[in-house]
């Protein structure tokens, strides 16, 4: 009789009581994700600004008026000196084969053809102003750790300077610059040009010149903190380039600190982040802004999703992120008095990015309906920027010409001349940024939920 009563009781329990955990268990013990932004803070104090002007002979074409074409170079140099001086105490230099300081009063000479002419003995001058030793400038920028560096150049660098030991001398200071949390802004501006372009490599190994170009891009490299770079770039575009056709200038930031501020620091997560969650109890830890959502959900809901504009966390005009990663840990239990069981295989969520938005689908790879209902789950999810992109190569590709192609390009007698090895230079910069890049947290959150049928 007792056995029958036991069986009937079991039957009753099975049929009429649906399994659910009324209360939320204490979370499992796990290492909390640090949501503190490690980005170097921008100091409010004014920094030293070092401005370097490329003194190579090819540059003089930018300061001569070309009838029918707007000379933006002269305007930009004028405005740039003002912008630099507002940013902090400014020192000017000219560089070619070596770096030489320029007296403050002589800066106006930069916009005159005489600045690019030989002033001393002809042989010494020829060596000095036909070489663009960017590596020396980067080295100087590396030494001035707490300063902003602005370089004005035509960025005409031959292939031999981008391989072997010459490449290494270029890359070494760049690494230090990026390691110190600094970035490199590259503003390219198409300007009128009336001069001779030297050192154009030919297929037979000799070099040629070209004087037929009416327009040619020059570049302003800004080395400093992201905010400083963007400030200077914005001032240039607001003052000098305000009426200039946007297709005539391009900008990109090369940085290993792509994330301006993670979503936790911005207090992005709130009760409305997940549209399908109703009556969610959201707790945010005060110290690290780590949200924990407590809720019950039917496995039929399948997944939780949130979208966030890239501009919310990604530095504008940067190289972008080519690979995102989700790091997740999941535990489950069916009894608060028992310990949590940790999942062995974790591939439940995924992340994807469009040009505008980042979409995070929690349980998007393996849906909630693959989990066992009648249990309580605790999921710790972090969205990570895993690999740096190379957006700037496509941004500047229009102005690039490779060494093998430049002779043929010259023979077409172009009016708009291109920059030799521009993409190669960008690749060097990008590779350094990629080496220095460390996977960075975009967002971290916890979910604690009862899964119902």
């Amino acid at each position, binding site marked *: 009789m007792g*056995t029958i009563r036991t069986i009937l009781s079991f039957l009753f329990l099975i049929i009429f009581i649906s399994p659910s955990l009324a209360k939320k268990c204490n979370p499992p013990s796990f290492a909390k994700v640090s949501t503190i932004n490690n980005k170097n803070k921008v100091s409010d104090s004014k920094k030293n600004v070092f401005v370097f002007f490329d003194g190579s002979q090819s540059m003089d074409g930018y300061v001569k008026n070309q009838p029918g074409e707007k000379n933006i170079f002269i305007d930009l140099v004028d405005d740039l000196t003002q912008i630099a001086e507002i940013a902090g105490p400014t020192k000017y230099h000219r560089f070619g084969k070596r770096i030489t300081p320029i007296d403050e009063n002589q800066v106006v000479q930069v916009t005159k053809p005489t600045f690019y002419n030989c002033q001393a003995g002809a042989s010494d001058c020829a060596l000095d102003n036909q070489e663009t030793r960017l590596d020396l400038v980067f080295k100087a920028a590396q030494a001035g750790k707490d300063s902003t560096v602005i370089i004005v150049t035509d960025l005409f660098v031959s292939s031999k300077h981008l391989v072997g030991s010459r490449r290494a001398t270029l890359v070494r200071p760049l690494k230090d610059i990026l390691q110190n949390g600094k970035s490199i802004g590259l503003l390219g501006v198409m300007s009128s040009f009336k001069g001779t372009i030297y050192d154009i490599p030919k297929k037979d190994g000799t070099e040629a010149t070209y004087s037929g170009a009416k327009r040619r891009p020059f570049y302003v490299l800004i080395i400093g903190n992201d905010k400083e770079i963007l400030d200077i770039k914005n001032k240039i575009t607001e003052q000098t380039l305000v009426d200039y056709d946007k297709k005539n200038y391009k900008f990109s930031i090369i940085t290993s600190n792509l994330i301006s501020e993670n979503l936790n620091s911005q207090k992005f997560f709130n009760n409305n982040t997940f549209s399908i969650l109703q009556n969610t109890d959201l707790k945010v830890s005060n110290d690290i802004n780590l949200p924990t959502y407590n809720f019950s959900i039917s496995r039929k809901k399948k997944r939780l999703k949130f979208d966030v504009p890239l501009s919310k966390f990604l530095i504008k005009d940067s190289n972008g992120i080519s690979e995102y990663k989700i790091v997740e840990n999941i535990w489950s239990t069916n009894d608060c008095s028992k310990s949590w069981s940790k999942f062995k295989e974790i591939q439940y969520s995924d992340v994807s990015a469009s040009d505008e938005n980042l979409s995070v689908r929690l349980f998007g790879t393996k849906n909630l309906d693959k989990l066992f209902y009648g249990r309580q789950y605790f999921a710790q999810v972090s969205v990570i920027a895993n690999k740096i992109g190379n957006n700037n190569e496509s941004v500047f590709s229009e102005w690039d010409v490779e060494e093998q192609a430049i002779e043929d390009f010259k023979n077409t007698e172009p009016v708009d001349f291109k920059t030799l090895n521009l993409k190669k230079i960008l690749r060097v910069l990008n590779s350094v940024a990629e080496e220095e890049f460390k996977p960075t947290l975009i967002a971290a959150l916890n979910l604690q939920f009862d899964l119902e049928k």
Partner: protein
Amino acid sequence: MKIKYLIKSLIYPGIVAAVFGFLSISFSTLLFSNPEDGGVINFLANHVITGEIESQGTPFADAAGPVCNVFGYSVVTGLAITLIFGFGWVVISHFLNVDGPGKSKIYSIYWIINSAAFAGLLIILSLFVFFGGTTFLGSQFITGGGATKLTIGLLVFYVLMYYLIVLLGTARHNRSSVLLAFKLPGNL
């Protein structure tokens, strides 16, 4: 007179029901007691319960208990269905008039319908409890292959029990309607 024959013909099916019922009740009692080891648990672990519990870190006991409950429920329900359909046919067979020529062939249709309904109900039961239903917590831990094995096991056991009941309990004048049962050895 019919009641007398009816009561008489319930003896052998009653013995069959008692033997199978005892096995069935014992087995379901074992299942409802949530055993932690033994042959049944080994069978469930190797043939029935999904390997997904391992990747989700779910302790085996969290799955084995609910699966035993589901299995036990289906054993008890299967027994009830078999008794209802088996003895139902035994009783009905005594009230079927097959005096007319060819009528026994017509009544064999009734037997087939009764048997098909019985087997169909067992299959529906299996589909309901083993194949991904959400009424029972344990159903979610059972693989497709495991559900098939449990279904076949239940069908073999209860179809055998049903057939023996109807074979031994059907009214003699109607035995021809029960397949293979027109003449039984030992003048049963």
